[in-house]
């Protein structure tokens, strides 16, 4: 890579769509907001199908939720919220326009000029500016028989059409793909704490990214389905653009799609969508006049938000701010933590358990990504089994020296499978830590017997001791007290070198 290309500043902006999944009905009609898993075109009515003569009627709670999210993102709330028609012809849009918002003549969108602080960037912090936050309707879904390339026509399902979306547009303030991931995780946590959107539901949070380097043209990447993929797509796009720039090839301003199977971005076929949308005010929806006291009433109704919760965890439970952030970043972990402290008052020990062992377990075994296609089942089913009492008991058993951490992790697996309480599992599986010499004697002897060569090596090489210790742990199914086992091994080695047995 040439000097020029690697020095050029990368600028990344995001456009995020969050479905207000906590709503019961759609944004402009009374169809259910819960469209998932339904037979195609059974969750529709003349309004969301755009039939002539129908009129939209705005969902009050959708406006309230959008204002709450705007407040959580430090936005100014518009005094007058208005809607616009964004015109384009595409089969997923039955009316041939989308009802959305537009800031042409005045600030019409719910919120503008907000910010979100990333305070955990390896010790430093950074503010990402929010340009605007607006309400709009989700389009329907297109399906194809076989693949999109071989199908002769599209199959349209309008069940999703008209579901309430909040669109959040950031300024191009990100320099790195990792910052994008942090931002999305922080946003997801805010959504979870507000209780307005469940990011784990498929398609509930979707993200487009704008990427440019130096003075080159801006490229928009669409169709990114999970948080992990946003980071990947942005990283890929930076590499692609730098590579073009270093070879002196022009970077075209264009829309590209993320291909999650091949993990590359591909040029989107030319569509009209980047052209003239011919926005104009939606005449069928009267303005929403927002008074200062309405905003304050909503603010008062808002639950504790992630930043405040992290502070409280540090203050009340004496957690490190890193640990507190990891917990709060995923609301269910923070909730599990707080509930567990009611059963066992060593908060730091419980926090440690959740942040290292439980989270590690989830990441290993549950293909765990908080926002990805169809993956809400696995981790949810684990949380149905692992209750605060389970976590409290595990932490307590380890702290009291009854079991070691290796055994505790095995018990966690057993808990996930059976839902049994750790104390009951310990009794059943004979899992108490082997912390008496006579309990370990036979295992240590067996290892020395079988690993004669390693034992001889241990006379001159300390590292061989670790190998032997690993064998003792394995033969004891992880139940041996490692400290005791090591001292016993050392004793045997010392005996041997003294010319003993």
């Amino acid at each position, binding site marked *: 890579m040439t000097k020029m290309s690697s020095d050029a500043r990368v600028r990344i902006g995001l456009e995020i769509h969050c479905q207000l999944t906590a*709503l*019961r*009905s759609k944004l402009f009609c*009374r*169809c*259910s*907001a819960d469209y998932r898993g339904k*037979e*195609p*075109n*059974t*969750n*529709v*009515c*003349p309004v969301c*199908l755009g*039939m002539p003569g129908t009129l939209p*009627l*705005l*969902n*009050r*709670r*959708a*406006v309230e939720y959008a204002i709450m999210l705007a407040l959580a993102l430090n936005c100014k709330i518009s005094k007058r919220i*208005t809607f616009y028609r964004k*015109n*384009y*012809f*595409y*089969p997923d849009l039955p009316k041939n326009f989308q009802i959305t918002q537009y800031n042409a*003549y005045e600030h019409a969108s719910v919120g503008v000029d907000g910010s979100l602080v990333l305070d955990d960037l390896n010790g430093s912090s950074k503010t990402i500016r929010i340009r605007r936050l607006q309400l709009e309707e989700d389009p329907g879904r*297109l*399906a*194809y028989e076989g693949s*999109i390339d071989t*199908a*002769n*026509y*599209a*199959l*349209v*399902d*309008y069940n999703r059409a008209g579901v309430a979306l909040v669109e959040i547009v950031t300024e191009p303030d990100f320099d790195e793909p990792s910052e994008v991931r942090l931002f999305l995780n922080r946003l997801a946590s805010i959504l979870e704490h507000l209780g307005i959107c469940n990011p784990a539901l498929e398609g509930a949070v979707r993200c487009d990214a704008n990427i440019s380097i130096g003075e080159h043209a801006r490229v928009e990447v669409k169709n990114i389905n999970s948080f992990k993929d946003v980071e990947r797509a942005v990283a890929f796009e930076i590499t692609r653009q730098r590579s073009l720039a270093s070879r002196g090839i022009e970077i075209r301003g264009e829309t590209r799609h993320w291909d999650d199977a091949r993990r590359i971005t591909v040029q989107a*076929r030319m*569509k*009209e969508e980047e*052209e*003239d949308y*011919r926005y*104009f*005010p939606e*005449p069928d*929806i*009267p*303005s*929403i*006049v927002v008074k200062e006291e309405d905003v304050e009433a909503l603010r008062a109704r808002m639950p504790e938000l992630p930043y405040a919760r992290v502070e409280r965890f540090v203050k009340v439970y004496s957690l490190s701010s890193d640990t507190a952030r990891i917990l709060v970043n995923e609301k269910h972990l923070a909730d599990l933590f707080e509930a567990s402290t009611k059963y066992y008052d060593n908060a730091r020990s419980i926090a440690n358990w959740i942040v290292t062992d439980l989270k590690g377990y989830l990441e290993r075994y549950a293909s765990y990504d908080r926002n990805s296609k169809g993956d809400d089942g696995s981790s949810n089913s684990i949380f149905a089994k692992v209750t605060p009492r389970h976590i409290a008991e595990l932490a307590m058993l380890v702290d009291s020296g009854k079991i070691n951490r290796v055994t505790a992790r095995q018990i966690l697996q057993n808990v996930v499978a059976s839902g049994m309480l750790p104390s009951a599992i310990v009794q059943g599986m004979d899992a108490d830590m082997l912390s008496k010499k006579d309990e370990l004697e036979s295992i240590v002897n067996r290892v020395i017997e079988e690993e004669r060569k390693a034992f001889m090596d241990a006379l001159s090489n300390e590292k061989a001791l670790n190998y032997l210790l690993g064998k003792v742990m394995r033969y004891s199914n992880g139940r041996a007290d490692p400290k005791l086992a090591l001292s016993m091994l050392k004793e045997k080695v010392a005996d041997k070198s003294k010319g003993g047995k």
Partner: protein
Amino acid sequence: MVGIEEVRHLAYLARISIKDEELRLYAEQMDEILAYFNMLDELNVSDDVEPYRMCRAYNEMRDDVPVAFSDNVLSNAKNTKGRFIKAPKMSS
């Protein structure tokens, strides 16, 4: 003045095909429509009304209560496949 290319572009955006000989006719008609709308600019409108809002009501909203619509909406669709509505593929 609306130009021929603008009409062609609008036709593309609206996904309709028009014959070349119609382009001039539509351009002229659009000019007439715009001229009619230009009369609005002559109105003296004070700052306290929203000139681009035709509705004086505000805060018309409903509660978040779902009600299912039971009629068979697919009966209005000409082209269906199972419960899906068939539509032209737009991507090529």
